[in-house]
C-alpha cells in the first residue's frame, strides 16, 4: 500500500480541494439573489443593505438574477419581499432600484468579468507616496461606508514603473455608482450641541461676550425678531445655527464650529499622535491644527454651556457634544472637555479610550479619516473603466465548462489514437481533472492559518526526508514552499485565470505524454530500467516547468494585475503538477506496465 503513497496523496489533496471549493452553508436556502447595490432613488434605500439575500418577491420565489430582472422590470405599487429571512414592504413608484447578483455557489472568489460589476482604476495626479495613497484609500473607504456601499473594494496597486493606482470594484453595475462616490465633495462639518435653558419661555444664547434673547412659543421660537421652526437654520454672529427641538424647558441648538477648510493639519508625529496603554485599556489621541476663525467660533459657541461631572472617568465635560458630519450625514460624536469652554484653541486634541490597542488605533485612524474627508490629498483621474453585466459573465462560465469538456474529449481521443491503450489515456483524463480541482481548491482557500500549517508540515516533511537521506530535488522543496505562499495571496478566478488553468492543464498533458512515452519505449527496455526512464522523463518535465515559471513571473507584475490571475494560476498549476500529479501519473504507469 505504502508503495503507492503518491497516488494516495493525490486522492487526499483532490478531496481536500473539493471540500475547499464546495463546502458552504446556505442560511437562507440555495435559491435567491444577493443584493449588490441599492440606488439612492430606491424605496428600499436605508432598509435593504448590499450583501442581503432576497428569496422571494410578492410571494413568488426568486431563483436567480434573470428571474429577478424579469420580475422587477415593470414592477410598480406595493411590494413585499423577503431578505435575509425577514419581510420588508415598500411602495414602488418608479423602479425598485436594487441591483443583484447570483448567490455564490462556491468559495471561489470569482473575478468581475465572470460575475458582473464595475471596476474603475484611478490614477492620482501629482506626487503620490505610499502614505498619500493609503490616505486616499482610507477616505474613499470611509465614504463608501457612509453611503452604505460596504461591498465596494478598494485596492492600491503600484506598477513596475513606480506609479500608483487605486482600483475600485463594485459588484453592482454602472459607473455612476463609483463616479458618484468620487464626485461627492465629502463636505465636512463639526457641529456643537448647544443647550439653552428657558425660564418662563425666555432664554439667552451666549456667544462669547454677546447674548441673544430667545422667546419660545410652543414649537416655534423667536431669535433676533425671526420666527424659527424646528430643524430650521439661521445665522448668529456669522455662525450657522440649527434649531433642533425643545425638551421640557430646554432648547437644543446645533452650531457649526468647523468646516472642511478649517482643519489645516492633522498631526501624525509621535509627540502629537499616539496610542498609549492605560490601566484597563488604551488611550489614543491626536492634535489638529484648526484655523483662527474656527477656533474663535468654537470658543463663542462653547461659552455658557453647563458642565457635568463624569463619574466613570472622574473628569468634567460640557453638557454637549461635538458631532462630525460628512455630506450632512452624522459619522461620529465626541465629548468636549470642560476646560475648553469659551477658550480659543487652535491646536485642540482629540482623544478617546478603547479596551484594546487594535480598536484604539482603528478608531484613531477612522476619526483622522473623517476629519480629512474635506478633500482628497490629490486629484484622481479615471484611468480605466470596466463594466460587465452579470448575465454576460455567467455565460462565459458556461462556455468555459463546455470547452473544457470538449477539450478533455479531444485530448483523450488523441492520446488513445497514439498509444492505443486505455490504461495510458484514461489516467491522463483523471489527472487533468484532478489538476483543475486542485488549482481551484488552492484559489478557494484564503485562510492564512491553513496555509501556514501546510507550510510547516511541508518543511517538516522535507527536513525528515533530508535527515533520512532520501534525495529531495530542488523542485520538491521549491514547490512545497511556494504553493502555500502563493495560496495565501488572495487571487480571484477571472477569465485570464481560466486561460491559465487551461494552459497549465496543457503543459500537464504534455508532461504525461512524455512520461508515458519514456515508460513505453520498447527499444530501450533492455538498456534502462523503469526508474531511469522515469527519471529522464522528469528531467525534461522539470526543465519545461522552470521555463514556464520563469516566463510567467514578469506577467504577475504587468498591467496593474489585470493578467495576474493567468500568471498565478499557471505557476500554481505547474508546481502542483511537478509536486503531486506527475509523480502520481508516473506511479500509475509504472504499476500498470509490469516488466
Amino acid at each position, binding site marked *: 500500500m505504502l508503495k503507492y503513497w503518491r497516488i494516495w496523496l493525490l486522492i487526499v489533496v483532490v478531496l481536500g480541494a473539493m471540500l475547499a471549493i464546495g463546502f458552504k452553508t446556505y442560511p437562507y436556502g440555495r435559491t435567491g439573489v444577493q443584493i449588490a447595490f441599492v440606488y439612492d432613488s430606491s424605496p428600499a434605500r436605508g432598509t435593504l443593505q448590499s450583501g442581503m439575500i432576497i428569496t422571494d418577491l410578492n410571494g413568488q420565489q426568486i431563483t436567480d438574477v434573470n428571474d429577478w430582472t424579469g420580475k422587477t422590470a415593470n414592477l410598480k405599487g406595493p411590494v413585499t419581499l423577503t431578505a435575509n429571512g425577514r419581510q420588508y414592504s415598500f411602495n414602488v413608484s418608479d423602479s425598485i432600484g436594487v441591483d443583484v447578483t447570483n448567490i455564490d455557489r462556491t468559495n471561489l472568489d470569482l473575478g468581475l468579468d465572470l460575475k458582473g460589476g464595475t471596476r474603475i482604476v484611478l*490614477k492620482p495626479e501629482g506626487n503620490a507616496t505610499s502614505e498619500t495613497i493609503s490616505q486616499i484609500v482610507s477616505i474613499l473607504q470611509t465614504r463608501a461606508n457612509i453611503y452604505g456601499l460596504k461591498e465596494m473594494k478598494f485596492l492600491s496597486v503600484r*506598477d513596475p514603473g513606480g506609479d500608483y493606482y487605486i482600483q475600485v470594484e463594485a459588484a453592482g453595475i454602472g*459607473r455612476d455608482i463609483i463616479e458618484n462616490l468620487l464626485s461627492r465633495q465629502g463636505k465636512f462639518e463639526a457641529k456643537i450641541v448647544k443647550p439653552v435653558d428657558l425660564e418662563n419661555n425666555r432664554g439667552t444664547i451666549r456667544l462669547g461676550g454677546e447674548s441673544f434673547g430667545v422667546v419660545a412659543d410652543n414649537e416655534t421660537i423667536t431669535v433676533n425678531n425671526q420666527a424659527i421652526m424646528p430643524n430650521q437654520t439661521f445665522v448668529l454672529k456669522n455662525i450657522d445655527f440649527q434649531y433642533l427641538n425643545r425638551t421640557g424647558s430646554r432648547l437644543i441648538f446645533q452650531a457649526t464650529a468647523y468646516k472642511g477648510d478649517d482643519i489645516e493639519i492633522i498631526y501624525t508625529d509621535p509627540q502629537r499622535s499616539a496610542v498609549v496603554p492605560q490601566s484597563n485599556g488604551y488611550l489614543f489621541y491626536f492634535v489638529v491644527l484648526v484655523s483662527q476663525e474656527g477656533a474663535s467660533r468654537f470658543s463663542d459657541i462653547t461659552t455658557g454651556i453647563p458642565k457635568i461631572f463624569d463619574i466613570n472617568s472622574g473628569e468634567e465635560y460640557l453638557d454637549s457634544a461635538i458631532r462630525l458630519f460628512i455630506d450632512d450625514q452624522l459619522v461620529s460624536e465626541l465629548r468636549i472637555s470642560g476646560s475648553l469652554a469659551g477658550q480659543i484653541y487652535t491646536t485642540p486634541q482629540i482623544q478617546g479610550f478603547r479596551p484594546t490597542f487594535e480598536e484604539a488605533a482603528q478608531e484613531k485612524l477612522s476619526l483622522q479619516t473623517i476629519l480629512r474627508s474635506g478633500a482628497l490629498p490629490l486629484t484622481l483621474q479615471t*484611468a*480605466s*473603466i*470596466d*463594466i*460587465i*453585466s*452579470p448575465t*454576460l459573465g455567467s*455565460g*462565459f462560465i*458556461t*462556455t*468555459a465548462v*463546455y*470547452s473544457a469538456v*470538449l*477539450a478533455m*474529449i*479531444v*485530448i483523450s*481521443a*488523441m*492520446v488513445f489514437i497514439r498509444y492505443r491503450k486505455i490504461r495510458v489515456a484514461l489516467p491522463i483524463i483523471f489527472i487533468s481533472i484532478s489538476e483543475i480541482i486542485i488549482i481551484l481548491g488552492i484559489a478557494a482557500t484564503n485562510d492564512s492559518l491553513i496555509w501556514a500549517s501546510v507550510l510547516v508540515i511541508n518543511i517538516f516533511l522535507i527536513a525528515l526526508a533530508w535527515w533520512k537521506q532520501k534525495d529531495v530535488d530542488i523542485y520538491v522543496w521549491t514547490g512545497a514552499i511556494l504553493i502555500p505562499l502563493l495560496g495565501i495571496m488572495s487571487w480571484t478566478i477571472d*477569465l*485570464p485565470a*481560466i*486561460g*491559465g488553468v*487551461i*494552459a497549465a492543464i*496543457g*503543459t500537464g498533458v*504534455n508532461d504525461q*505524454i*512524455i512520461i508515458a*512515452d519514456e515508460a513505453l519505449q*520498447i*527499444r*530501450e527496455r533492455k*538498456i534502462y530500467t523503469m526508474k531511469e526512464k522515469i527519471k529522464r522523463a522528469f528531467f*525534461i518535465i522539470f*526543465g*519545461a516547468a*522552470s*521555463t*514556464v515559471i520563469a516566463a*510567467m*513571473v*514578469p*506577467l504577475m*507584475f*504587468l*498591467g496593474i494585475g*489585470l*493578467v495576474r490571475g*493567468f500568471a498565478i494560476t499557471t505557476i500554481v498549476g505547474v508546481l502542483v503538477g511537478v509536486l503531486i500529479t506527475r509523480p502520481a501519473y508516473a506511479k500509475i504507469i509504472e504499476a500498470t506496465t509490469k516488466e
Partner: protein
Amino acid sequence: MDEKEAEAKKPRFEFKNYKILLVIPLIVLLISAGILVNGYMQTGDWFKRSIELKGGTLINIESDKPVDTSALENSLAGKFGLLTVREIRSFSGYGILIEASSEVNANNIIQEVKNFGITVQSFSVQTIGPALGATFWIQAQLGLAVAFIFMGIIVFVIFRTLVPSLAVILAAAFDILFTLAFMQVFDIELSLAGLAALLMLIGYSVDTDILLTTRSLKGTGMVGQRIYGAMKTGLTMTFTAIGALAAMLIFTASPVLTQIASVLLIGLVFDIMNTWITNAALLKWYMERKGIV
C-alpha cells in the same frame, strides 16, 4: 504485436537533408519580417494593439440575432466619430464588438445600439485612458523581454552547452516573431491576455525543444532515430494541445479566452516547424561537428 516485429517496422529516419529543410523557416522568417515591416511603414506600429495597450473603449454586446455591422457602424460613426464595429460569432449567440476612443460615453453608444433595433442581452464595457494604455504597452514590451531573458538563463542552466541552448532560444524567438506577424494576417490585435499567451508560448515551445535536445544528446541509437523518436512524442504533445485549444476556440464567447486560444494556436503550429526543423537541424549539425552520430 510482437516487440521485435514493431522494431523492424520502424521506418529508417536518417534526417540527412536537414540543411535544405532549414530553408523553410528562413522563408517564413522573411515573410514575417515583411508583414511586420509593412505594418510599420503603413501605420507606424509593428503590429496592431488592442485598446488595453493603446487606450480606447471596447464595448462587447451579446444579441439574439445577427447584426448588420456596416450599417450599424455608419449609424454610430455619424454620432460618435471614428469607431469600428466587428461581429463575433460563437456557439452561445451573436455578438458585436464596438471600438471607439476613450472619450466617448459608452452608455450613450449602448443606448444608440438599442435604438438601432438590436436587442442588447448583455454587455461589457472596457475603457482604458491613453496614458494608462501607453504605460501598459511599455510594461508589455518589458515583460516580454524579461521573460525571454529568464527563459534563456534557465535553458543555459539546463543544458550547459552553448549551441544546443542557443538553438532552443532561437526556436522560441522564431515562434514569438512568426506568431506576432501572423496575428496581423488574421487581424488579431495584441492585448494583455495575448501577451500572457505569448509568454505561455515560450513555455510550450521550450517544452518540445527540451524533449528533442535531451533525447538527442542522452538517448541511444542513431541521431536520426533519436530525433525521430522525440518527434513522435513531441508531435503527439503539440497536436493534443492544438486539439484542446481548437475546442476552446469553438465554444468560447469571451474575447479574452478567444485571444489566448488563437495566439497559442498560431504559435503551436509554428512551433512544430521551429522544433522539428529549426532546432532539430541546428542540433544535428552541432552533433555531427562534435562527432556524436
